[in-house]
C-alpha cells in the first residue's frame, strides 16, 4: 500500500477532443519517441521485426464504431493514464514506487523502486499501465514530466509530446484544478466528461464528446415547392437561359 497526498497544488492533465481526433497515431508515436529516451527510458520493444512485435507504449489510440446505419459513427479514442485524484494504482503499490506528486498531481512510477509485481495494472480500470517485459518494471504516462518543466525547451514547448505533435489540435494540456485555466474553460464549454466516473477514482483527464452532426439524421430539409424546371420538359433549358439573360441585364 502506498499513500496519496491529501491534496495537490495543481491537477495537471489532458483534455482530449473526440470530435476531431482522426486516429492518426501522432500522439502515440511522438509519446513513444520522447519517452523511450526520457524519464521512462527505455520503452522496450519485444520481437520488433518478428512474428509478434509488441512493447511498452504510454499512449494508444483505439478506433471503433458506435451504432449502426444512419446514426452510426466511427470514434477514435486515445487512451493513457488519467492521473486520477484517488488512483487505486498508487494505493495498491506495495513498495511506494507508484506515487502521486503533491506538486502537480502527476502519477509516476519510480523505476528504481518498482518490483514489477503488476498489482497497479490490475488495479487500474482504464488499462493505462504498461509493463515493460524487458526492463521488468511498470511504465506509464508521465505527462512528460521531463518536458513540462524543462528549461532546455522553449517555454511554448513545455507541454507533453503528444500535445505538441497532435496535428488536429485534439489534445490540450493544463491545470484542470484551476477553473480559470484554458483547459477548464474548454471542459465547461464543451461538456467535457470523466471516463467511468462511477469507479470513483476521479480522473483528472477529461474527454470532449463529439459535437452533434449536421446530416440527414438532423436535417429539417424540405424540398422547396418544385420549380417548373424540375419537372423536365423540352424548354427547361430555354427558361433557364431566359433567367440567366435577365439576371445579367440587371
Amino acid at each position, binding site marked *: 500500500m502506498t499513500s496519496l497526498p491529501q491534496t495537490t497544488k495543481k491537477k495537471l492533465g489532458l483534455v482530449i477532443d473526440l470530435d476531431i481526433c482522426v486516429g492518426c*497515431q501522432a500522439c502515440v508515436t511522438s509519446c513513444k*519517441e520522447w519517452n523511450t*529516451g526520457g524519464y521512462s527510458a527505455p520503452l522496450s520493444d519485444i520481437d520488433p521485426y518478428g512474428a509478434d512485435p509488441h512493447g511498452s507504449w504510454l499512449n494508444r489510440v483505439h478506433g471503433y464504431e458506435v451504432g449502426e446505419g444512419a446514426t452510426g459513427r466511427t470514434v477514435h479514442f486515445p487512451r493513457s493514464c488519467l492521473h486520477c485524484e484517488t488512483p487505486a494504482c498508487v494505493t495498491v503499490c506495495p513498495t511506494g514506487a507508484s506515487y502521486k506528486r503533491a506538486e502537480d498531481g502527476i502519477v509516476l512510477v519510480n523505476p528504481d523502486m518498482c518490483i514489477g509485481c503488476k498489482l497497479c495494472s490490475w488495479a487500474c480500470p482504464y488499462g493505462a499501465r504498461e509493463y515493460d517485459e524487458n526492463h521488468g518494471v511498470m511504465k506509464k504516462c508521465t505527462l512528460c514530466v521531463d518536458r513540462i*518543466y524543462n528549461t532546455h525547451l522553449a517555454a511554448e514547448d513545455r507541454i507533453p509530446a503528444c500535445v505538441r505533435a497532435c496535428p488536429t489540435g485534439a489534445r490540450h494540456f493544463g491545470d484542470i484544478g484551476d477553473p480559470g485555466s484554458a483547459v477548464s474553460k474548454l471542459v465547461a464549454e464543451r461538456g467535457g466528461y470523466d471516463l467511468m466516473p462511477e469507479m470513483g477514482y476521479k480522473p483528472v483527464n477529461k474527454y470532449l464528446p463529439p459535437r452533434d452532426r449536421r446530416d440527414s439524421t438532423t436535417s429539417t430539409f424540405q424540398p422547396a415547392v418544385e420549380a417548373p424546371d424540375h419537372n423536365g420538359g423540352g424548354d427547361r433549358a430555354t427558361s433557364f437561359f431566359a433567367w440567366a439573360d435577365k439576371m445579367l441585364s440587371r
Partner: protein
Amino acid sequence: MSSRRGELDGAGVARLDSEPAVELSRNPADEIKYTTCYMCACRCGIKVYLKDGKVRYIEGNRDHPVNKGVLCGKGSAGIMQHYSPARLRAPMKRVGPRGSGEFKEISWEEALDTATYWLANVRATDPKRLAFFTGRDQSQSLTGFWALQYGTPNYAAHGGFCSVNMAAGGLYTIGGAFWEFGDPDWEHTKYFMLFGVAEDHASNPIKIGIGQLKGRGAKIVAVNPVRTGYNAVADEWVGIRPGTDGLFVGALIHELFANRTIDLDYLVRYTNAPWLVIEDRGAADHGLFVRDEKGVPMLFDKKSGGLVHALTPDASPALTGARTLADGRTARPVFELMSERFLSDEYSPEAVAEQTGLKPEQMRRIARELAEVAFEQEVVLDHPWTDWTGRRHEKMIGRPISMHAMRGVSAHSNGFHTCRMIHILQVLLGAIDCPGGFRYKPPYPKQVPPWLVPHGALQTIRPLEPLGGPHLGFPLGPQHLLLDDDGQPSRIDKGFSWDAPLSAHGLMHMVINNAAKKDPYAIDVLFLYMANMAWNSSMNIPGTLEHLTAKDDKGEYVIPKIIYSDAYYSEMVPYADLILPDTTYLERWDCISLLDCPISTAEMAADCIRHPVVKPDRDVRGFQEVVIDLGARLKLPGFVNKDGSPKYPGGYPDYMVNHERKPGIGPLAGWRGEDGTKTGRGAPNPDQLNRYLENGSFFAHEIEPHMAYFRHANRDYMEWALEMGFRVETNPVIFQLYAEPLQQFRLAAQGHGERQPPDSHRARIDKYFDPLPFWYPPFEEDMVDSGTFPLHAITQRPMHMYHSWGSQNAWLRQITAQNRLYIHRDLGREHGIEDDDWAWVSSTIGRVKCQVRLMDGVNRDTIWTWNAIGKRKGSWGLSDDAPESNQGFLLNHLISELLPEGGGGYRYSNSDPVTGQAAWFDLRVNIEKADGASETEPRFEPVKQPFEMDKPDVLSFGAEFREGRK
C-alpha cells in the same frame, strides 16, 4: 525537486518521507538540427534532436509553412525508419537469378563504372533503350533534367499511378489542382467537401485544417465509401458507391442550375462560359471556339451587339443566345452547352440515385446547403485589389465553399472527367481563389492548360543528343502527341500516344509490362528509383514478376539490365542487377524546388532543403548525388563543363546552389543574388545553403494581402509571378469549363486533320474526348460481369503509414502488422462470414485469401483493406514468420494492368483513357468464405537476405540516453 508526502498509519503502508527526486530538466539534445521530413509527400519541417551522436527525438518545426509545428504518426516514428535493419549498406551486383535475392557487395567505383558503361552504350547507339522512372522522387526537376540531357524519351515519375487525373483535370480546367497546387482556405471556409480523400494527400495540412474547421463550426461533408479517418469526423458522411462521384457531382450541378443558384457574374468574368463554340456538325472546326484571324477566341458583346475578343475589358458578354457568324454558320456560348448537359434528366438526383447509392433528398439538400453558404454567407475582406483590366475593387468578396479530392476520384478510369466536374462545381459557385474557397499555391495558377508541350517524339531522338525539351507537358491537340511516323507510341509507357493522349505524368505502371513485351519496342536498361514496382506499386504482381524475369530464346533476360536505387531492402531490390544504395532521409541533401512540386502554401511561395543531420554509417550515397555523378561520367550536357570536367564537383549541394535553369532561376528561390538579397530570380549565391540552414532549412515569401486572392485575374499578383519566373506573361487565367483541346482530339477521331487515330482507337477517342465533362462507368465495371463480380474493392493506407517508404518500422508495425479485409456486416451475414473468418476475394485475374473484419461504416457494395501492409517473405528485414508476409495481403494481385481485349483484339492499359492514370480503384470482385484458413494466399517464394541484418530480439532504444542519469 521533491516535496513532503502525506503520511498514513498502519502496517504495510509504504511510508516515504519525501517524493523521489525527478530530474525535470535534463537536456534532451547536444544539438538540434532542422531539416525536412521525407516519410511521405507532405514534406514537413522537422527538428532533429541529436544526443551522443544518435537521433534522440524528432518534432515538427513551428515556423514551417507546411506543418506549423505538428508532426504525424509516421514522422514521429522517424527514428525507427532511420535505424531500420533493412537499410542497404553498400552497392551490390546480382549473382543469382533475378528475384532470388543473391547479391555481392561491390565498391561504388565498380557500381558507377558498370552503370556508366551500360548507360553510355545505350546513349551512343539508341537512347530510347533507356527507361528511367522514379517513384516517390521529390527531385523531379533534377531527374527530369538529367533524362532530358541524356536524350531518352522514356522518363516520368510515379504520378501516372498516383494523381495525374487530379493534376490534369485541374490544370485543363482552372490552371491549378488539388493538393500540390492548391488548398482550401482553411481560415475562412464554412463548408468543406472531401471527395475520396482516404487519409491521404496531404497529411498534416489537412489534419490541421480539419481541426480548425471543426473548431469554427464549419460543416465538413465527406464523400467516401469508407468512414474512417477524416471521414469519421465529418458532419456528414456520404457513403457513395465507388466510381460514381461524377454522377453525384453532376446531380449537384443539375440542382444548382435548376434552382438558379450559380454565380453568373463570376462565370462572365473569369470563365469561358460566354465564349462562342462553332456548331457545324461534320466540319473540321465543329466544336471549336470562334476565333479571329489571330486565333483569339470571341464572344458576343451585348453592348456593341457584335463579336469581340474574349479578353475585351469593357465588354458585356452574353452567356446565352445562338449567334450567326459572318460565314452564315451558327455558334453558341459554352454556357448554353454546359447548361444543357447538366440540366438534362441524366443528371437529376432521381436518375443517379440507384447508381450512386444515395438518396435524392440528400443530394438536393447538399445542393441547397452549398448555395446557401455560397450566396448568403459571403466572406468579405477589406483588401482592395486590382483586376487584370486595371479595375480597382475595394473588397475581396468570397464564397466560402471549399473542396478537396484525391485518390477515390483519381484512381478510377473516369477520374479525369470527374475531377473536371468537381472543379466546375466550384466555379459555378464562384469559389475558386476567393476568400473561403479553394486557393492556389504558387507557382500556380498557370495558363489553362500550362504552356508546356511534351517532348520525345522518336523522329527527334538522336544518339548523344539531348531531348528538345522537357518530357512531360500538356498537349493542346493531336499535333502534340509523341508518335512515330506510323502513328505508334514514341514512349515505352505509351504516354502521349492515342492510348493516353493527356498523360501529363507518364504511365510508370505500364513500363515493365511494355518492356517485357517489346511493345512498342525493346529496351536495354531499366533504371528505377524509389518505386516498389515488384510489389505494392504495380498492378498484377504475379504478372509483373514474370515480366521482370522473362527470358528470350537465348536465355537472356528480355529486359536485359535493371538498375535500382533504394534505401531499404524492398521487394524490388531482388529483381535488379545493380543496386545503388540510397541514404535515409536524415543523411541526405535534397531540394524541394519551385521548379517542381514545392512546399508553397496559399499564403506563401516556399521551398526547402534536406541536409545530412547525421552521417551515414554505411557505404551509401544519396541518389541525387549519384545522378549528378553519372551525368558527369556520361558527359551529359549540363553536367560537364566545356573541358569535360564535372560541372558540379561538389555534388548535389553544388548543383542546388549553382545550377541555373534560366538565367537567375535555379533550384532554390531564397537568398539569391551574390549578396543573398534577391528572391526568385538572381545570380547564384555561394552562401545560399547556409542561409537556408539558418532559417530552419526552408524559405518562404509571404504574399501581400492585395495579391492573396483572385490570383487568376489579379494584376499585381500576375506581375509579381512574372518577376518570380512563375509565369511568362500577365494575361488572366480563364477557367475552361469547355476544354477545347479535347475537342481537337475528338475531331481527329471523326476524320479531321493530318493526325488521326488508328481505326482501332477512333471510337474510344471520340467518346472520351468530350470537351464537357461527363460520367461513364469505370471500365472494369463496364467490361466484367457484374453478376459474377458484384463488389468493388478499394484500398487506402493507414495514416501512420500513408505514402511512406517502408512500413517495416519497428514502432509502426506494432500498430499495424496485418491488414484485414473490411466488409459490411450485411455482406458478412449474406455470406455467412463472421469477424476473424477468412475469405477468398476473386477478380477476373486471380484470388487472394484474407482475414475479415466486419464493419458498419462502409458502402454495402464495397470491400476494402489497408494497402501495402502485406510484404514478401525475406524483404524489409522482417523475419519469415512476420504477420506482414503470412497474414498480410495485397489486393494488387487482383488488379489487371490491362483491360480485357476490346474490338480488334487490342488490350488497353487499365487506365483513364484521357490521362493514362492507373485505374486501380476500378477493381471488381466477389468474396466467399474460406474455411479453416490461417494464412494468406498467394504467398511468393521468400527472397534471400543478401547481407546480415541487425534484427534484435528486443529493442531498447533510448536506454543509452538514460545512462548517466542522476
